[in-house]
């Protein structure tokens, strides 16, 4: 059938063609619509002046809301509590509260009749929910930022009106490259910026810090973890599992960045997100999660249907696929956070923000024969080649504690976590520390000041992130978790190269902020 009037192209238009044309237009419109909704998260150093101003304006409005009412879920303090605060008594009338609201409280008894039990949230750490949980937290945070002043007509407490926050995203700080400011991106250091924060370490890295943190910010070490398809090794272990805890990224990179690079508020999960730099730091970690997902897809990610705990404001629409689950309000399940386009963002990655390639990693690990080096056969272990030779700097004074245990090289070794060095915490406050693990033959005298020995025998080096005050529960005691260093692959290399039955030693060097000697016991466990 033909439609009556020929068009200039002289080709008669059939209904079929018309339908497909309309369909095409509809699809195109949809496509354009969807496209417009996906915003770019950029490197904070690449933001235009108006983009940075919009982000600062949005953050300032959140902070202003909290200054008025710290219990406002759409304010900065509550959003920090989503990360920092498992429990708080929420006053029905915030102006009558005798709490300043900065700190999450640990009061067992209801302070008065006008208070309700409330659970703002807790970050997930030391398990496979670490990366998904922070992604979910950022989804809500970003939507909240966008809704602060979409029309650009609000005046914040600095007296600035606008610009529109409609297209604000959380910019990331690529902390594997040299900072544009003294220690952080310039945007975090400007004196009048809401992104500046008193309670963080300031000033350029000292020489000691540079040496120590080089391995923490080492892009090659991070790249190797991205290319490894073993999700749990990268992302952490399930909370129901009897072994495990941190994935490699979390203790080797994330934890020392919190404790030693930012320090102060960032040193503890119970205060970390009060530092606005938290969001730039963790946005980059979300980009690393994205890199891993792009490499390997989400199939291997564990705990996909786990619900992510947090009490977020009703004004933010949850992401597609969200179901509330039973019990308390939540951010929904891990699996709805795999596709960032559905969450309304994607990353802009300039060449300077790309990680080293697979080949770079292979090259770093290759011995003279071109094959991967085996532990004990070379002057630099795989860990030293990829990452570094330990976080303790002998030039900075004595280590907090050095402990040595014997280990007999067994005749076989299972997979990952089959031989672990375990640092078990007894008593006392749950503080952050750094731990370097060396494995060497009994005939060698271990000297933490010897570069040769460190290079040759380092098997693992990372940090434990203590929970500090507000997250502890149990009065005098605090939850303590052992810090586990998997040495299975190094021992596997020793078995393969004729060392079965030999006595070797494991030495753990503990340093960092303020733990006292003897606060952990070191053991080697064969599972």
């Amino acid at each position: 059938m033909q439609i009556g009037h020929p068009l200039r192209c002289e080709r008669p238009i059939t209904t079929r063609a018309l339908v497909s044309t309309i369909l095409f237009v509809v699809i195109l419109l949809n496509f354009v619509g969807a496209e417009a909704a996906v915003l770019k998260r950029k490197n904070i150093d690449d933001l235009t002046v108006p983009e940075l101003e919009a982000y600062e304006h949005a953050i300032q409005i959140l902070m202003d809301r909290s200054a008025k009412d710290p219990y406002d879920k759409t304010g900065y303090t509550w959003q920090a509590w989503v990360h920092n605060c498992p429990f708080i008594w929420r006053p029905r009338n915030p102006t009558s509260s005798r709490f300043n609201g900065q700190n999450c409280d640990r009061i067992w008894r209801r302070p008065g009749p006008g208070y309700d039990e409330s659970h703002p949230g807790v970050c997930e750490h030391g398990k496979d929910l670490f990366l998904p949980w922070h992604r979910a937290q950022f989804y809500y945070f970003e939507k909240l930022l966008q809704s602060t002043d979409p029309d650009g007509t609000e005046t914040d407490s600095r007296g600035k009106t606008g610009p529109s926050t409609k297209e604000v995203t959380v910019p990331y700080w690529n902390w594997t490259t040299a900072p544009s400011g003294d220690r952080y991106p310039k945007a975090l250091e400007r004196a009048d910026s809401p992104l500046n924060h008193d309670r963080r370490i300031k000033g350029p890295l000292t020489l000691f810090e540079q040496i120590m943190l080089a391995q923490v910010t080492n892009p090659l070490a991070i790249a190797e973890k991205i290319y490894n398809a073993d999700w749990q090794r990268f992302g952490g272990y399930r909370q129901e599992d009897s072994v495990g805890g941190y994935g490699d990224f979390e203790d080797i990179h994330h934890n020392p960045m919190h404790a030693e690079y930012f320090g102060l508020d960032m040193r503890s999960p119970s205060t970390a997100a009060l530092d606005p730099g938290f969001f730039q730091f963790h946005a980059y970690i979300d980009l690393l999660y994205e890199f891993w997902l792009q490499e390997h897809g989400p199939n291997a990610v564990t705990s996909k249907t786990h619900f992510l705990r947090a009490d977020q404001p009703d004004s933010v629409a949850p992401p597609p696929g969200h179901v509330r689950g039973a019990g308390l309000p939540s951010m929904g399940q891990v699996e709805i956070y795999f596709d960032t386009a559905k969450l309304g963002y994607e990353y802009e990655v300039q060449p300077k923000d790309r990680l080293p390639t697979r080949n770079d990693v292979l090259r770093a690990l290759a011995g003279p024969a071109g094959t991967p080096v085996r532990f004990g056969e070379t002057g630099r272990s795989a860990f030293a080649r990829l990452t570094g030779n330990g976080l303790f700097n002998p030039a900075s004074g004595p280590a907090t504690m050095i402990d040595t245990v014997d280990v007999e090289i067994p005749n076989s070794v299972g997979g990952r976590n089959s031989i672990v060095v375990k640092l078990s915490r007894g008593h006392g406050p749950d503080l952050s520390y750094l731990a370097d693990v060396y494995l060497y033959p009994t005939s060698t005298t271990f000297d933490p000041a010897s570069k040769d020995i460190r290079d040759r025998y380092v098997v693992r080096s990372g940090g434990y992130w203590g929970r500090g005050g507000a997250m502890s529960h149990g009065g005098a005691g605090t939850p303590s978790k052992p810090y586990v260093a998997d040495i299975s692959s190094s021992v596997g290399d020793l078995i393969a190269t004729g060392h079965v039955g030999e006595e070797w030693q494991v030495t753990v060097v503990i340093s960092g902020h303020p733990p006292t000697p003897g606060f952990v016991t070191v053991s080697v466990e064969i599972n």
Partner: protein
Amino acid sequence: MAGIYWNDIKTILQPGVTCMRQVTIGTEEGVFVARLDDYETVKRLHKVIRAALNAWRRNAAGDAWLRDSNGRGIPTKAHPMPPPPRGPMAIEDVDAFIAWVDDGMPEEPPPIA
């Protein structure tokens, strides 16, 4: 049949009730306050509770906790409970919890036929 019922378990978990009231746990069903005095909650969170209680090192026979030189338990995994300084609960109680879980977490003894 282990012959262990909710009342026994409630007694075992009693010392942790106040403390755990402030803790939320994400599971595959949703997010819950760890109310250790509530049967439905304990049933729901049994996997996590079991892993947390059974998170201390045992001797080779598996019937006693290993202790460090100060007599304190030695944790084996990420979130051992109860936390130090209280340390592990009596090993018999942990085993009772495990047996109760393996038995299907009965609330009450079956009625006599």
